[in-house]
């Protein structure tokens, strides 16, 4: 959960100062901020559970690609605003369902983080749904771009629903709810869901990330790696 929010938060923050309209600069920064805040909580808890003297920053800034457990979807580059918002929508839809399930976790720390995050993510989902609908329905060009984003990102959707032995919840069981939610929005947006359900995998297990992740963490980790003795 922490790696997902870290990697997506980083991606969204790349929009800083160059969004299509001022309100979007503010909204994207807001989303990135929420995600970085969630990262601090999840990775903080992960470090505590690990109990090896690391903290959230050590996990964020001193692990290499193979140790990242984020979904491939969130490491996909921003490309254009359409891809960015489609990625956000697909992730938000999944994220809100997962957080709702984790909210009832027996582990009270997890339940608390999930509850706090869900409030933020509910708002993210509302926003990204509205944007996907508006731009899907908007002009011929905006429709074309949103469809291109959906087509390009669809092969990364399936991975979100692969359950493995580390999962606390059965994520596969969340797929019908996800389909219902996304069908609804994409339909209103006049977009067609790709029929090929092939999925790339390897992000969540760390077995095979895409090439994009290495570049991202090279940027993200530069300072703590270059000056290991420094405190910031």
């Amino acid at each position, binding site marked *: 959960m922490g790696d997902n929010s870290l990697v997506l938060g980083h991606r969204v923050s*790349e929009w800083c100062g160059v969004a299509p309209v001022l309100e979007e600069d503010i909204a994207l920064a807001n989303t990135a901020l929420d995600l970085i805040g969630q990262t601090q909580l999840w990775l903080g808890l992960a470090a505590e559970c690990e109990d090896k003297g690391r903290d959230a*920053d050590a996990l964020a800034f001193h692990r290499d690609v193979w140790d990242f457990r984020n979904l491939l979807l969130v490491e996909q580059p921003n490309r254009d605003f359409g891809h960015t918002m489609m990625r956000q929508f697909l992730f938000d839809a999944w994220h809100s369902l997962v957080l709702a399930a984790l909210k009832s976790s027996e582990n009270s720390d997890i339940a608390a983080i999930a509850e706090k995050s869900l409030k933020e993510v509910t708002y993210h989902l509302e926003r990204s749904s509205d944007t996907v*609908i508006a731009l899907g329905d908007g002009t011929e*060009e*905006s429709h074309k771009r949103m469809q291109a984003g959906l087509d390009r990102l669809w092969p990364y959707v399936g991975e979100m629903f692969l359950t493995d032995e580390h999962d606390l919840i059965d994520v596969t069981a969340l797929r019908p709810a996800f389909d219902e939610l996304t069908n609804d929005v994409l339909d209103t947006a006049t977009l067609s869901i790709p029929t090929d359900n092939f999925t790339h995998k390897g992000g969540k297990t760390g077995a095979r990330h895409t090439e994009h992740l290495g570049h991202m963490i090279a940027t993200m980790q530069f300072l*703590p790696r270059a000056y290991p003795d*420094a405190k910031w």
Partner: protein
Amino acid sequence: MYAQMVKSTGTGVKALDEMEPQERAFQERINAGDKIEPKDWMPAGYRKNLIRQIGQHAHSEIVGQLPEGNWITRAPTLERKAILLAKVQDEAGHGLYLYCAAETLGVTRDELTEMLLDGRMKYSSIFNYPTLTWADMGAVGWLVDGAAIMNQVPLQRTSYGPYARAMVRICKEESFHQRQGFDIMMTMAKGTDAQKHMAQDALNRFWGPSLMMFGPSDENSVHSAQSMAWKIKMNSNDELRQKFVDQTVSQAEYLGLTVPDENLKWNEKKGGYDFSQPDWDEFFDVLRGNGPETTERMEARNKAWDDGAWVRDGMMAHAAKKKAMKVAAE
């Protein structure tokens, strides 16, 4: 400042008894400390001058996102990343308040944006400088937001109501930015040798450009005299620059950093520091478009605007369709 070298009517300040009754009543309201509101009568020059000033200020907030945005993806801790993101988000918000204030004067945000993008309007010279190390995030908050506050605190009392109110909201956030910047500088200045080096280097590079933010001396400027009579400028450039130097030198001492000015000396008689003027030739070069990052800044803003056109069009088209459907249903 965020608005530099704003030109007024250029004809000089008229005495009250040279004014037509309407203008005289307007000036008397200003003298009495009244706020002018959008629906009130105002001289054309006052309106034009304010549009230039508020517009330039708004553009500075917007372009000002870029030098700091340059380090968001390289912030060294999660907390620093969050703080910097929040700061840059605030700056976008400042831009929004200010465009709204300008719109009350009869110009649209899109018109102002186009004037920025085609070079008819300017933004503060300071944002044409590069941010090269993480210490620059400290220096920008400490010095640049610090200098902005010097100018903006008095502007909370400016005569135009919407501008004054925007300043009140903005000032609260700016002082927070300055503290955060100072905190970064402090951490760096007390850190490893490499960090100290970065901190001193940042101060060296940002000191002169920060002093330039106040603009050249305007003791003899007719534009400034008019703006001050209208209370859309509250202090002279030299006055604010002096105040900034006096405040900042002791902070630099506290940090253990050296202000890069051999002539810096406490002057007991004036109760302030004597200091060297920044390189005004460089300042005028920057205003002419030859700042070290000017081309990059303008390219980035133009690209954002052009790349975003389909998004803005799409949003508008959708909103229009929704509206038409609602009308049809009624």
